[in-house]
């Protein structure tokens, strides 16, 4: 197989980074990205893009740690380069505070982020309702800049990108040798994955340039994440809600909760409300599959179900998916050489 044709369906952070990894591990591949939405209209564009992992109940921790480490290392190098501002990647320090001491004081990722330590008594004074906290430095991926930077890198490799709604993976079998499914929430419909469910998140993006530190409540519901131009205030975690319409009551509630952590936010301007559906699953589906229909086979690599942790593990899962694409190619070449005998 001279130039395997690979279609990546989905142009969120998972689709774009997976496509990029495929061009890196398989330079002879011809990669095409197909999606009904591109930045700034993907779920990824709503996310703050903070590198603070979400723990998947059914994925082994060592695998999650590997994904996070690869992602952190990749982005760390960009943040340290001249491209940092274009890619929207920057370091940010801050605090994760807990109302009661968590069972696990040292999360699995504590040695990957920078300078992780428990907050001092003096620091906790700022949070009278919280009794324990962690201080660390991590990375943030601002969207759309990061997405646009990924698109630019892809175009430089010759990757084509088309706006197209794929209703059925089989649509693609005549044009492409391998299909990579990075459709996030779309996989619910596209491949009928009933284990995939939305967790609705509403956020506010505000102008508050004096906020330089992140603050996150360990319950994951309230957070303040300063980006290049906007501070993301969150949020909600509504399991099973498919609504993409902003809820004014939630806006008020998010704002109040964030102001109680950081009172100066009262002076924030230009509040924009956004909603995204976290494509949630008990474990991220990074898996090979061969679809079969009437004697025709279609190799598929799945890479979806990252829920609240997409940015944190995107590069790691993209690399794993690219590796699986490599396996698909080997399998195709193996079977085609067998066919020649």
């Amino acid at each position, binding site marked *: 197989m001279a130039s395997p044709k690979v279609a990546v369906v989905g142009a969120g952070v998972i689709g774009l980074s997976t496509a990029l990894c495929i061009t890196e591990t398989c330079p002879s591949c011809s990669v095409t990205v197909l999606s009904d939405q591109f930045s700034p209209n993907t779920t990824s564009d709503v996310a703050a893009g903070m590198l603070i992992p979400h723990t998947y109940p059914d994925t082994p921790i060592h695998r999650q740690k590997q994904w996070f480490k690869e992602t952190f290392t990749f982005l760390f190098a960009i*943040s*340290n*380069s*001249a*491209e*940092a*501002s*274009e890619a*929207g990647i*920057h*370091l*940010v*320090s*801050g605090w994760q505070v807990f109302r009661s001491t968590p069972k696990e004081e040292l999360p699995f990722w504590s040695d990957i982020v*920078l*300078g992780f*330590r428990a*907050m*001092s008594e*003096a*620091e906790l004074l*700022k949070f009278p309702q919280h009794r324990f906290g962690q*201080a660390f*430095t991590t990375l943030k991926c*601002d969207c759309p800049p990061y997405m646009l930077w990924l698109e630019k890198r892809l175009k430089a490799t010759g990757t084509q990108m088309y706006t197209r709604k794929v209703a059925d993976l089989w649509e693609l079998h005549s044009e492409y040798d391998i299909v990579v499914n990075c459709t996030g929430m779309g996989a619910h419909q596209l491949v009928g994955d009933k284990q995939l469910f939305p967790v609705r998140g509403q956020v506010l993006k505000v102008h508050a*340039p*004096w*906020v*330089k*530190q992140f603050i996150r409540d360990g319950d994951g519901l309230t957070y303040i994440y*300063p980006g*290049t*131009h906007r501070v993301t205030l969150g949020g909600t975690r509504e399991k099973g809600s498919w609504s993409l319409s902003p809820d004014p009551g939630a806006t008020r509630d998010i704002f109040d909760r964030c102001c109680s952590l950081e*009172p*100066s936010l*009262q*002076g924030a301007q230009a509040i924009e409300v956004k909603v995204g559906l976290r494509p949630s699953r008990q474990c991220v589906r990074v898996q090979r599959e061969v679809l079969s229909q009437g004697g025709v086979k279609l190799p598929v690599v799945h890479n979806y179900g990252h829920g609240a942790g997409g940015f944190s593990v995107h590069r790691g899962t993209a690399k794993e998916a690219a590796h699986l694409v490599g396996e698909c190619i080997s399998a195709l070449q193996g079977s085609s050489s067998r066919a020649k005998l």
Partner: protein
Amino acid sequence: MRVAVIGAGVIGLSSALCIHEQFHGLVPSLELEVYADRFTPHTTSDGAAGLWQPYLSDHGNLQETLWNKETFDYLLGHMHSPASKEMGLYLISGYNLFTEPAPDPSWKNIVLGFRNLTPKELELFPGYSYGWFNTALMLEGRSYLPWLTNRLTQRGVKFFHKKVESFQELFSQGVDVVLNCSGMRSGDLQPDPELQPGRGQIIKVLAPWVKHFIITHDLKSGIYNSPYIIPGSEFTVLGGIYQHGNWSEENSAKDHKSVWDSCCRLLPALQKAKIVDEWSGLRPARPSVRLERESIRLGNRQAEVIHNYGHGGFGITIHWGCAMAAARLFGNILQEKKQLATPPGPRL
């Protein structure tokens, strides 16, 4: 009781506020006036980035360390107030970098979360092998000075735009106490060979992705002669110039290149940052802050001057501790003049 403050930088305005807050209720006749030829945004305080951080060593001057601590604690206490944004006050974390191990600074227990840098963090800064991380405060002069001015105006303090040529000038107008907060130009009012300019030059850029301060140190070349990057609420300040004895307030092309090149080496992404302004200022440097009373005999009167100048590159860092010390000196003056004891009454 007429009190004239000379100087409307952070020292003058905060001293005025501190004195008014403490004494206007006790001294009904208190009249406070501020005289200056430069007001915000044209003072030295306006040019400063506004980072709370003392020099590396206090050289045993524990008094100054105490004033620094009082200022930090005072500002930290204001962090939860709704006024913090208007004051230009916010928390910020960052890095102090060295090419060799350095002794812990006098302020390590004043700031929040002080610790050494980990090897992985040092990877961010090639050429630097040692450093600190801590959380401190920013107090931007361009917001803080107008905020102080508003508080003073609300309290009925009067402002006069004029260059005071001598203390006598004010005393002959009936002023009882002068607060000399004239910073760099105190020498014009009373010669002080110990007061020397520490010239600095800074470049202001648009780099809103920078969320940490980064201050490098070259222990051999002295404070602030090594690149530093301080993100403000609007612009990021690039600096690294400290020229002792240089009175020039003109921007120098050589200094521009030195600051630009060294900061871009420190943070490569700055190469893409847009330059919006450049400024030179004179840090009013002195071996120690002059904060003391001076009684001046004028005929049959005793006039009082409270000196509060010579804060070098740490004016914002130390201002409130000094303001309170100046207020205490003022309190002493009032007691001596029996202004605090009993209300005015008929003399028998």
